[in-house]
């Protein structure tokens, strides 16, 4: 790819999804775009980019943006966040909601490992939640990622990254060479395509939002915007899980960090004490 091709892809990714794609990383662009070029019937990545430049066909633009948006993920990635969710946040929300459903959102769910990890936590904690109903939602910008996530099928390599063996045998079945998440876990999750830099107020409010390793992939102005959007979607007494160091340089104005809980934020400072 020529520098101009890389710059065009970076520009499209920033404009459509706020993605921070470094045009200098030619190897990364080529490795992500080669499958798109093949799938879309182009002879090469250069032909794909030429077509983008000439026609800006939305479907093709989004195929490129989605390919560049794909990030690394694993089950129970950063185990401490899931422990805090399971041991502290979930019981607190169960008490506060008193029979109303606890709404949890995995924003930028990728291929589903994060939201299924949350579903496993909820299923294993069910007895301690005093009958509280939990609604799990998962979204991603990529249709292809959502398709894989909804299939609930993972390779042997994928299930060995982060997933303890007891949870593998308790919540998965082996199907040929793949591992399938059990139907009772898969059915706990509802899926939707959401672009976090666009207006997503229609998704409603959530008691817990996981949006980890997402902000760090965005250009700075969009990190601020997405953070404001997430704060707007968070219930006044809700909890937002980010990854460490993902808050923009100018701070998280609508949110307050929970002391001693790296990556955990609340809208209302009074809610911090309860975490």
């Amino acid at each position: 790819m020529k520098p101009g091709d890389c710059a065009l892809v970076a520009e499209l990714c920033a404009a459509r999804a706020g993605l921070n794609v470094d045009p200098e990383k030619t190897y990364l662009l080529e490795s992500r775009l080669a499958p798109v070029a093949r799938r879309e019937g182009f002879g090469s990545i250069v032909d794909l980019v030429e077509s983008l430049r000439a026609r800006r066909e939305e479907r093709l633009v989004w195929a490129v943006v989605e390919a560049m948006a794909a990030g690394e993920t694993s089950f129970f990635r950063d185990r401490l966040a899931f422990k805090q969710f399971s041991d502290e946040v979930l019981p607190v929300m169960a008490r506060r909601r008193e029979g109303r459903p606890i709404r949890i959102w995995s924003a930028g769910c990728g291929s589903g490992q994060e939201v299924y990890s949350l579903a496993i936590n909820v299923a294993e904690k069910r007895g301690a939640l005093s009958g509280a109903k939990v609604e799990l939602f998962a979204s991603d910008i990529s249709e292809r990622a959502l398709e894989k996530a909804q299939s609930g099928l993972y390779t042997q390599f994928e299930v060995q990254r982060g997933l303890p063996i007891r949870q593998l045998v308790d919540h998965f079945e082996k199907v040929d060479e793949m591992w399938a998440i059990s139907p009772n876990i898969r059915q706990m999750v509802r899926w939707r395509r959401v672009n976090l830099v666009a207006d997503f107020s229609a998704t409603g409010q959530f008691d817990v939002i996981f949006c980890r390793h997402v902000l760090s992939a965005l250009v700075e102005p969009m990190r601020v915007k997405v953070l404001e959007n997430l704060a707007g979607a968070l219930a006044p007494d809700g909890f937002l899980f980010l990854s460490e160091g993902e808050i923009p340089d100018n701070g998280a104005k609508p949110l307050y960090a929970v002391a001693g809980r790296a990556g955990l934020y609340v809208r209302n400072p009074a809610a911090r004490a309860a975490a």
Partner: protein
Amino acid sequence: MKTCLVVDDSRVIRKVARRILEDIGFEIAEASDGMEALAWCRASMPDAILLDWNMPVMSGIEFLRHLRQEPGGDKPTVVFCTVEADVSHIREALDAGADEYIMKPFDGDIITSKLAEVGLA
């Protein structure tokens, strides 16, 4: 320094595992079958054991059952590392006292991730 006994009849696997485990701070001992591993453990219990299933003389599962009966044999964290990748083998290993289970092929990330789950990395 924590010690790990790598038990596998493949010299290549032992070498690969040794490199990965040394990189994350383990001191390594090696055995090529369950009987040899049992002799190692009777002399000095390691902190962790990376254990193959199918080996000559004594299999991994037989070794584990013997180990858990030995004085101090409840202490080592045992991680199976085997081509046996079906649920029945995994359950059999857990029932015999295994702490974690790796399905081959593996890489450094998988070994590190599994050892982290049992508090050893």
